[in-house]
């Protein structure tokens, strides 16, 4: 019995040391789940002869824990902006050799400029996809319960009177404190990027008020739940909600899912490629990133996963309906209202996680 516990302890200590075996002509990629058109991987192998070992995660926390444990054996990883910034500070990534990335010229300046906030001079990372954190909803179920529902506003989530109308049909929130707390702060008219105890406390109070109407905090289940009609509303990531919309359409079950970027503003985030310092195949990693930035390839991925590409050159190959969808490519005016947040330092992170635990569990 005791050795069983010890094993758990040993495993906890050793967590994150697993990874793909180092071999020549291989690139070990660690990306978000459901975040690529897998045909692209075969095309890469055909073109370069480099085999791709592809592994996935579904939360930045898991990725960061692995990276900070070191020795992951990954060549390319895809952290989100705030996490990227902290990981750069921790010395996780190597500087990119831009001479090996000629396709950088196709990247979208507008996005690269915003990412420079997390990665000064864009030295460590190249944007893959970007998106927003907004509201996904089941059109019919919302209409049934409230004909004039303000679907273009955070009132849907943060106004007790309105959100309570939808509690019976199921509401999911992302299990991500660093996205929901800024959303609450933004709704309260405070700085979404604030790290002060007082502001986090205020956001917590607001979230606690609507807590009784939330069925679940989870960061990936809502895709299927929305598509199947199990829930009627979710705070989720743009592309994921749009994937749910697509799945519902394909299933033909009569479920209509929509995504809205609330008019009060929403979080804009960026998932970028970066190469860990101890990557066993940095050459192959550069080749992989360069390939993914190729306009045709970047477009193929966007057409498949419904997230906006960091490549401007890709836009001519992206389907019209995606390029013209303001939920994916917000217009200039909407873009103005999007905000970004900076990383939390260890102390404010603790306050944040603690507040979030309290929101979720009531203790």
């Amino acid at each position, binding site marked *: 019995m005791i050795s069983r516990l010890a094993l758990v302890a040993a495993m*906890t200590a050793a967590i994150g040391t697993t990874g793909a075996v180092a071999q020549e002509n291989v690139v070990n990629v660690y990306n978000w789940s459901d975040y690529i058109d897998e045909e692209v991987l075969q095309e890469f192998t055909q073109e370069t002869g480099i085999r791709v070992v592809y592994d996935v995660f579904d939360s930045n926390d898991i990725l960061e824990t692995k990276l*900070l444990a070191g020795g992951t054996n990954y060549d390319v990883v895809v952290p989100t902006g705030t996490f990227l910034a902290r990981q750069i500070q921790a010395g996780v990534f190597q500087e990119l050799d831009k001479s090996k990335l000629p396709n950088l010229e196709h990247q979208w300046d507008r996005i690269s400029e915003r990412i420079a906030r997390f990665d000064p001079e864009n030295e460590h990372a190249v944007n893959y996809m970007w998106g927003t954190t907004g509201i996904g909803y089941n059109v019919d179920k919302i209409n049934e319960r409230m004909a004039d529902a303000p679907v273009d506003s955070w009132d849907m989530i943060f106004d007790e009177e309105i959100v309570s109308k939808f509690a019976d049909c199921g509401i999911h929130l992302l299990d991500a404190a660093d996205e929901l707390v800024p959303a609450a702060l933004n709704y309260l008219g405070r700085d979404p990027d604030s790290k002060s105890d007082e502001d986090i406390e205020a956001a917590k109070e607001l979230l606690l008020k609507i807590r009784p109407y939330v069925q*679940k905090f989870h960061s990936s289940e809502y895709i299927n739940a929305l598509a199947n009609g199990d829930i009627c509303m979710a705070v989720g990531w743009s592309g994921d909600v749009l994937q749910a919309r697509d799945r519902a359409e394909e299933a033909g079950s009569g479920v209509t899912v929509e995504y809205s970027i609330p008019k009060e503003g929403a979080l804009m985030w960026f998932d970028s490629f970066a190469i860990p310092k101890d990557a066993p195949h940095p050459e192959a990693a550069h080749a992989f990133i360069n390939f993914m930035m190729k306009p045709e390839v970047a477009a193929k991925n966007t057409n498949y996963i419904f997230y906006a590409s960091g490549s401007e050159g890709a836009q001519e190959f992206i389907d019209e309906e995606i390029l013209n969808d303001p939920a994916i490519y917000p217009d200039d005016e909407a873009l103005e209202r999007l905000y970004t947040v900076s990383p939390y330092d260890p102390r404010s992170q603790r306050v944040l996680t603690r507040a979030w635990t309290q929101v979720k569990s009531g203790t």
Partner: protein
Amino acid sequence: MNGFSTSRAGRLIVRLLPYAWLLVFFLLPFLIVFKISLSQVTLAIPPYMPTFDLVGGISGLMDSVRQLSFENYAFLFSDRLYVLSYLSSLQIAGISTLLVLMIGYPIAYGMARSPRAWRPTLLMLVILPFWTSFLIRVYAWIGILSREGLLNNFLMSTGIIDAPLTILSTNIAVYIGIVYSYLPFMVLPLYASLERMDESLLEAANDLGCPPPKTFWVITVPLSLPGIVAGCFLVFIPAVGEFVIPDLLGGSQTLMIGRTLWAEFFNNRDWPLSSAVAVILLLILVIPIMIFQNMQQRQQEKNS
């Protein structure tokens, strides 16, 4: 002479093997975790300091030792979250153990009293679930318990209920998951001790006019006590630290130390504090067991 000494050396090795096992797989990892629990968080690889570096020589090592502190343990008791998590884990594990015992005992009893020819098959049936991954079996419960799941669909179609029950994402689902997953760990030791029981004792009690229910409580239960104790330990201890079941089946309000530890480790990236949580958890489990075994040993000595 030579043969004698090698066999003695062989015996010594066999005797030392369990200790070597404990040293490598229990004591060493424990010491590493304990050391991390005395460190501080920092933004680096690995995310804590000091790391013991032999480059600095003895004085460097001493410097590192001086940086260690029990701060994290003090913090654990300053926020009621941790104490509540421990208590709630103990409660969930305790109730689950009781439920498993109540369900497992009749099963084991039935198996032990069944015709001898059936027993291997019945034993096989108890072990059979292990052939599927634990994770998949817990996932299967999501499909059974969800709002649009098998259970609700069945109950609705038979007209027993009108509206779907909310079981998934509640503590009830956690109890169901734990009871289901740990049942074999209770049945197997119980079966082993019940099967070994001398049935002539029951016949004797019967001949002397003891009614069957009383026979059960006076003879069967005391004789199966070692099985009950072993089964309860096998269920209770891993259930306290359970993470997968509360994470998949439990709701946001399900408070268990495994999840609290996960949040410290992955959300806060606070290895030192999560190590402190783990060390305290280990103490909570190991100390009562040691006291219990000590008491048992004394009891045995007194009896003999």
